[in-house]
């Protein structure tokens, strides 16, 4: 018979092993893509799939030679961060007021905001294209920033609202009693307390913008095309392409992946709602 402590640590060990197993299984496709990016095209399609092979950098050099990676990457960065920043500036006040000053209309407003995303992009392609054409926004980063802000705003508001709801009102009221203004209340008390949740919101918005592949292909040509267009240029040509596609995908997803990994620690660390129980 194991003692309680021993049982607990065995439990923890088992859970740990299980967790690792699940994580590796979930990560496996990405690992495989990474692996494939270092194979030659013949190796990439070999049966049985090869775990060991002689690696090559030819795919990466080819991508670099053929396309201006930095141009696409810069567009992605500008568009993703731009739309996220503007989105947060709009979302945080809205979520604040809806979370702490709830009215009968709050739920309705939240749902209505989400309903602005109900029209499938394929159905509304031509109207948007016409609007963009007439306003000169085609193939501009500004145009993409505007569209991404609009399509991600409902999500950002919802997420921020969720995290704000976790914070007890007393904390804010305490700050207000202490004489702080609305702005100070938000900036000095609310934001630090909801750091983790807001970080998740920002991360989500960045990912959604970074990977958005419908509008970014249809509304841009060569000037404002982000990394999604770069990937599109490697898909499905006549000829073998999986190794190259893996390489270009790795290059396209790497920035946001690394960013996410780094900020993930912030995310989890910032979540201690300890001020008031």
């Amino acid at each position, binding site marked *: 018979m194991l003692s309680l402590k021993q049982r607990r640590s065995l439990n923890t060990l088992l*859970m*740990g092993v*299980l*967790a*690792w197993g*699940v*994580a*590796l299984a*979930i*990560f496996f496709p*990405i690992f*495989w*893509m990474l692996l494939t990016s270092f194979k030659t095209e013949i190796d990439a399609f*070999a*049966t*049985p*799939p090869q775990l060991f092979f002689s690696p090559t950098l030819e795919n990466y050099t080819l991508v670099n030679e053929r396309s201006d990676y930095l141009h696409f990457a810069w567009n992605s960065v500008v568009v993703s961060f731009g739309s996220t920043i503007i989105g947060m500036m*709009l*979302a945080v*006040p*809205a979520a*604040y007021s809806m979370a702490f*000053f709830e009215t009968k209309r709050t*739920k309705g407003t*939240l749902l209505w905001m*989400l*309903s*602005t995303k*109900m*029209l499938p992009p*394929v*159905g*509304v392609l*031509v*109207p*948007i294209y*016409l609007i963009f054409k007439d306003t000169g926004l085609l193939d501009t980063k500004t145009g993409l920033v505007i569209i991404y802000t*609009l399509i991600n*705003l409902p999500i950002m508001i*919802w*997420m921020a609202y*969720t995290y704000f*709801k976790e914070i007890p*009102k007393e904390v804010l009221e305490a700050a207000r009693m202490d004489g702080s203004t609305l702005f100070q209340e938000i900036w000095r008390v609310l934001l630090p307390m909801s750091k*983790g949740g807001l970080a*998740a919101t920002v*991360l*989500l918005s960045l990912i959604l913008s970074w990977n958005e*592949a*419908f509008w970014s292909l249809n509304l841009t040509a060569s000037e404002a095309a982000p990394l999604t267009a770069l*990937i599109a240029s490697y898909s499905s040509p006549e000829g073998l392409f*999986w190794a190259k*596609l*893996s390489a270009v*995908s790795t290059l396209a*997803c790497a920035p946001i992946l690394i960013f996410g990994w780094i900020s*993930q620690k912030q995310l*989890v660390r910032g979540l*201690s709602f300890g001020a008031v*129980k």
Partner: protein
Amino acid sequence: MKTTALNAGPASSAAEPKQDSRQGSIRKTSRINRFMVSPSVLVLALWMVIPLSMTIYFSVIRYNLLYPGDNEFVGLENFQFFVTDFGFMAGMSNTLLLVGSVLLITVVLGVLISLLVNQAFWGRGIVRILLISPFFIMPTVNALIWKNLLLHPVSGVFAAIWKFFGATPIDWFSEFPLFSIIMIVSWQWLPFAILLLMTALQSLDQEQQEAARLDGAGPWALFFHLTLPHLARPIAVVVMIETIFLLSIFAEIFTTTGGGPGYETTNLAYLIYSQALLQFDVGLASAGGLIAVVLANIAAFFLVRLIGKSLTEKQ
């Protein structure tokens, strides 16, 4: 309990001076709050109204990009044509099936996995990173990797595993097309659920848990009476957000099965693409889009009934 209501009625006539200024500050805050919400509302309203009205207009005329100038009013003809399409019923049911299955998988697995990683163990940080990684990959890349490198019946990793155990590899996209798509999409969205639920679990009241455990509550009781209610709101958020995205899944289907075989993986969004966009029939695409909106509203209506309360309730 707390003074949440802005529409608190007029103060009683026997108001003390303190209450008067309270009333004044409430009215002031309500103005500020309207001011804080209105930019978002305004912006979203514009975003909704302009394309929507154009779509409504286009849906009742004949408008094909390849036949410009031929734009007469045709009433409900576009809708009728869309609804009588051979793939329409399949499109509707596949949309609901797809959304429902992915929701189920991501929420259930999401809860289980976030519970799993909620306690400390060696390398927890790395495990968490691995778990949320799929969400960073572009949907088209995701679909291509699954289709060509993993699920391919000749050279894919799954085929190799099957052969290793002596079985004949499954031709996933021919034999289980919708399931394959569900698999791919769930893999993509599971990290989202994990991320939200994981961060929500961090704020679970540890003291309450300890107290309950000391009182003799078993793990199941803890789960059902403490953890799950706490997770109610994040789950509701995950469900609502995922639903909105999953209703118009397009890239994965486009890249892998092209809606087939037959109509087995055609959902409404793809139907709009193949019926309308492929022949540049803007009128038909608009009609299809509006029908998709109706479907989405119905889905949202039922969802709100199911989980709406958890959204706005205080714990």
